[in-house]
């Protein structure tokens, strides 16, 4: 039972990332009808927002302190980040919490990137075949990746979680097991809660606002909404920007778990597509459910007990599930009738 719980938790944080990316993908697909192969890149860009923010904060000023001397007699150089010099304790706090604080930078940046992408490129591909959409966004993904590579280099850049959220917490203690049975990194808990909040926010936005209602109506029948005199294209642009922000936030918060490099997006993209297909193209709850489900399945499959029976299963479980689901339930877990059926 304890092992079960631990694996469940292990699966949830990865599942959270899958669910967030798949949610954005589905949002774009359900509204615009575009298969966005550059979505993993948005995840990666989010992660690099966190890195940029951290780099900006850690710009240092060098001051020579004439009072103190180094052991070899030269005046001591004091290095101090500008934010700390200017803002004192708050600056220190900001530097410490740079990963969560970079959300503030990531939201506008990702929204602008999403807006530009949709207006500049995706807009022209509404009426082209899905194969063309896949190809052009695939090309865009290569271009963005290469630009990031030139700017930040090819090596992963580790980011650290805030001090108070580092380390592991004994969660089992809270649930009444013996101490030391279920020990789980705090940041992963944070990620899980964060993913839940973002998902809830997106659903609430779609469910309880007039804007969301129009978007949902547009997902169901775009033409009729257009005939009612609503400028659906403009709203869809905003939806694209929201999807970009969601992917970006997923990336920002994932940086302490996995040091980001320029091709991390591609690795997640392939899995997210599998998630979307398993959940059912165009179904938002399906995408979220499938994200968590596949994350958990993957973590269970990497248990030694299971690997002893079926060697290598942890490597292929996600794809295997996708193949089985596609063959027996062609619409995915919660796919709607008539979406992408041919």
């Amino acid at each position: 039972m304890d092992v079960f719980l631990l694996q469940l938790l292990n699966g949830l944080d990865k599942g959270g990332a899958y669910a967030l990316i798949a949610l954005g993908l589905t949002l774009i697909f359900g509204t615009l009808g575009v298969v966005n192969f550059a979505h993993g890149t948005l995840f990666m860009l989010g992660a690099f927002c966190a890195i940029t923010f951290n780099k900006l904060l850690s710009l240092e000023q060098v001051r020579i302190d004439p009072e103190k001397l180094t052991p070899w007699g030269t005046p001591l150089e004091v290095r101090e980040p500008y934010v700390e010099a200017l803002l004192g304790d708050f600056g220190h706090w900001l530097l410490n919490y740079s990963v969560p604080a970079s959300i503030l930078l990531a939201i506008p940046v990702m929204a602008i990137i999403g807006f530009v992408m949709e207006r500049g490129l995706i807009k022209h591909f509404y009426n082209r075949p899905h194969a063309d959409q896949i190809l052009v966004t695939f090309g865009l993904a290569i271009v963005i990746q290469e630009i990031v590579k030139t700017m930040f280099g090819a090596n992963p850049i580790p980011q650290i979680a805030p001090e108070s959220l580092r380390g592991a917490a004994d969660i089992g203690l809270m649930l009444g097991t013996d101490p030391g049975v279920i020990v789980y990194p705090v940041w992963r808990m944070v990620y899980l809660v964060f993913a839940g909040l973002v998902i809830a926010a997106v659903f609430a936005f779609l469910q309880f606002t007039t804007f969301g209602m129009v978007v949902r109506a547009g997902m169901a029948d775009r033409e009729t909404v257009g005939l009612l005199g609503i400028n659906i294209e403009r709203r869809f642009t905003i939806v694209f920007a929201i999807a970009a922000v969601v992917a970006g936030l997923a990336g920002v918060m994932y940086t302490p778990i996995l040091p980001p490099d320029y091709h991390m997006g591609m690795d997640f993209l392939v899995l997210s597509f599998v998630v979307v297909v398993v959940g059912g193209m165009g179904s938002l709850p399906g995408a979220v459910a499938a994200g968590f489900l596949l994350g958990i399945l993957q973590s269970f499959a990497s248990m030694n007990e299971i690997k002893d029976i079926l060697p290598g299963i942890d490597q292929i479980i996600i794809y295997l599930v996708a193949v089985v689901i596609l063959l027996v339930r062609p619409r995915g877990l919660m796919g709607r009738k008539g979406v992408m059926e041919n």
Partner: protein
Amino acid sequence: MSARTSPARDLVYFVIFAAAVLTMPVWLAPIGAGYPDLLQKFAIYGLFATGFNLLFGLTGYLSFGHAAFLGVGSYTAVWSFKLLGMNPIPAVILAVVAAGIFALAIGFVSLRRSGIYFSILTLAFAQMSYNLAYSVLTPITNGETGLRVLRSDPRIFDAADGAEGALVSTLFGIEMNGYAGFYFCAVILIAGFFIAQRIFRSPFGIMLRAVKSNQNRMTYTGLNPRPYTLAAFVISGMYAGLAGSLLCITDPLAGAERMQWTASGEVVLMTILGGAGTLLGPLLGAGLIKYFENIFSAFNEQTLHSIFSFLPDFLETPVVGLMSLFVGEGWQLTLGVLFMIIVIFLPGGIMEGVSRLGRLFKGSDKPSAADKGRVEAAAE
């Protein structure tokens, strides 16, 4: 394009193509591509893309997992070297057979669905093969290190030979490196092109095009598209296996990264860049990408400075700075930009551009064979 074709015209095309391939070392030398390693890559990836095009270009099924067959071909070829001996012919034959069987199994399952679902299914199978080759199948694939031929291998037929020197496959005493290796691949490429040409013109090819244009109508006329698409899938898998085995001829080493999905993406890029659904397009695309990879990536700022030295100084530095983003390490940026431009403005690839140009200059609907040869030279 198929509007005005005749057997005689096809024969002329074929002869010109064969001549162009065999003389590649001569006419590619001026642009710095006249060395056997690169030429061999042109031939191998041309074959890979030609096979991919038989599936995607004709039936419209976009497979994102073709690298799996390339990998299977490579592994089979290396095993054939290890067990049977260094003769490339059994290696090539076995690789084609193995890739064909593998493609039959994957195709049988994947072709139950179409559109993006088909792409995801093939991608899933390829990723499964890749992950397994890396982990559990290590006894067969030698995992991360890659499978290579060792001196201690049984090699039933030529265990006594090659006791010293590097292990290179030999075809009846001719070592398959340098130009010998290239010509071996070139001959196979020409044969592969011939088969592809025959398929394009055959009733079978017309059936495949029917699948692309409208599957429903095809079913209404009482035809079942499945056997045709499956056959196309298997044939194109066999081409990929063939290409995979040829990769091992000069350098008998097979690694799992050949099966990764980025490798599948590369063949998609090649085919689209050149022009899906045309005979020459995929070959042009493959040549272009491999040329970029080898020549552009070797550029550095020094070479750029010497190229732009005719500019005044205040212009030279920014131009070189800008250009250096696109060459050397950044050659993939060039590739990505080029690819996007092609998909946006020229969905038919380079071949569509060629035929548009041809129409522009001659007012006819089709460029002549001589035109094609010249453009091919220019494009590669």
